[in-house]
């Protein structure tokens, strides 16, 4: 399963990609997988961009999601992730660092990895570019593949879906074949 390869207990997975590349949809997929089996997930959202409506439509059980809004304060968001990563019992702790996040200091990144390792939490870091560096066990880049529109005639009626390509950038003992994966998302 894709989710099992993406989320590894006690390790950091990094999901990077430009806007509209599908990385938020992959995050939603991970939240759904965690909450649908009865576990709790936490999302630290630096730029307050999480959309509960589309998450619920994707099947995420919102009652099991702890949402922490960073309101643009990256330092506080990092502290929040550190706290959550040290709390055993969360199946998934996700950090959405936003679009222009600087790279994490090396000590902070390895501190996060150590915290996740001790508590057994799967830590997912989402951003436009890599910020965790060598502390991540797996880094996956999402790429906009194609869009599909529905409608006859010169103008479409609606957006039908989007295809995302997943490419492994770094893997450290992660069970990933190295072959690019493609995912279809329906709008």
């Amino acid at each position, binding site marked *: 399963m*894709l989710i099992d390869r993406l989320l590894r207990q006690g390790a950091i997975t990094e999901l990077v990609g*430009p*806007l*509209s590349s*599908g990385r938020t*949809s992959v*995050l939603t*997929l991970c939240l*759904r*997988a965690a909450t*649908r*089996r*009865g*576990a709790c997930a936490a999302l630290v959202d630096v730029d*307050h*961009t*999480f*959309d*509960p*409506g*589309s*998450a*619920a*439509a*994707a*099947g995420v*059980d*919102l*009652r*099991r*999601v*702890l*949402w*922490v*809004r*960073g309101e643009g*304060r990256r330092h*506080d*968001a990092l*502290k*929040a992730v550190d*706290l*959550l990563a040290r*709390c*055993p*019992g*969360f*199946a998934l702790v996700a950090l959405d660092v936003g679009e222009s996040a600087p790279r994490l200091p090396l000590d902070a990144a390895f501190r996060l990895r150590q915290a996740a390792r001790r508590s057994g939490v799967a830590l997912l870091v989402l951003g436009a570019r890599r910020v965790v560096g060598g502390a991540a066990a797996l880094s996956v880049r999402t790429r*906009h593949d194609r*869009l599909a*529109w529905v*409608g006859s005639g010169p*103008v479409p009626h*609606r*957006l039908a879906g*989007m295809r995302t390509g997943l490419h492994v950038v770094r893997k450290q003992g992660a069970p990933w074949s190295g072959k690019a*994966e493609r995912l279809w*998302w*329906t*709008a």
Partner: protein
Amino acid sequence: MVDGLSRLACVRVECFAAAAVERCEPGLREQPLAVVTGAPPVTRVVEANAGARAAGVRPGLAEAEALVRCPTLVRRPASPEAETAARHALLEACLAVSPRLEDAAPGLVHADLAGLERLFGDDTEIGRRFRRHARAVGLEARVGIAGTRAAAGVAARVGPPVHVLAPGGERAALATVALGALEWRAELAATFARWGLATLGDLGALPRHGVGARLGPAGLAAHDLAVGVDRTPFRVWTPPPFWEEAQGLDWEIDTVPALVPVLERVLARLCARLAVAHLLIEVLEVRFALVSGGHHARSVALAAPLGEAGPIVALLALEIEASPPPAAVTGVAVSARVVPRQAVPGGLWRPPVPAPRDLATVLTRLTLLVGGANVGTPVLVDSHRPDDYTLAPFDGHAAEDDAPSAERGGETTASAVAGPLALRRLRPPRPVQVDTHDGRPARVRDASGLDAVIETAAGPWRLSGRWWDTPAWAHDEWDIALPDHTVWRLSHDRLNNQWLLTALYD
């Protein structure tokens, strides 16, 4: 009356006013302490602890005389708040052992032991349990157990700290107790001495009506005590719906940093009481008595029920810094609304969830870090308006009753549909200028440098709501694709004729 079946315990804290002060300042336990009242030069001792009594300090002495008898005597003013809090603390500690209690007097609790032997063991073990719970809330108690409250009360005053009188043998046991071992009013003690009475047995051997005729109600009560008979009904104490702890201050405090250690001590005592009763704090109210005679109250609703003083003190400190007392503080009282501590066993087939204690601590720290309004679980509002949601307190166990569903999504192959496309919201929405062609968006620009031809636009979807009310809204929504491969949700506010980028497909 002794029926040979009922067993009652008397839990007694000696020198209660001094014990209440020691509970607030545990360092005083090792020193001779006198609780005094009245303004100098007529300050008098109202209570003294064991150390002070050993040096000859007795209630009723003038402060100056007490100091002559014990030069190292520590004096503290009587604190009704501390005594009330200690009285409740003792009752609550006893409540953890027996559900039927009687609040007989400050520092004196009677407990019905019916049925407890099956839970806790014999009378001695129950007595030890009372003492342990009392010690947990900062009070050193003596326990007497007998068939009546009177006999148990005498047993609590004399003998070992846990003194059990065998069923049916109460009167014989009481008969050997010296009258001097108990506290009597001075005139009563003098009369007993004049009559040549040395033990309770001597007093009990006298005819009751004769003692009553000569000594009045006080004599009758003394005779009942001597023979171990209860004449009054057992008045069951009902715990209050809120829990309070208070401390008066010897000096005025006018800065917030100086208040924090006081709050810490008061909350630590409250949390110790709640821990004994298996309760957690849900809402906390702190009330400061001001030097001006007024009060300043603040209330803190916790993100999750807590039983530890540390995180609550941090929250209270923030609250007080935001709204400091308008005058110097002379007393602190905290009152808590509580909820039962829940043991969460979980299910064998369920994934683990955060332990309530860990979760409560993490939520409190997160609240301190990013603010209470930014921590919670999203709840969708039943509305057609896009992005309409609220945040509710997160409870990891709230959804436990629902069976987890099998996860079928995420098993993807090269051509599989993984799920719906997610949105990233722009909060607040980004105002843009849009050129239209044939009523459809054709070009989008904004002040930050965005200037792009819209490659594809799908829509509009017309949404509106609350047209019957003042915050009416009406939008036309479009999905637009730009040349940089980004796909946005564009909204046209029909009421204000404004174009907004509200979300991004990602």
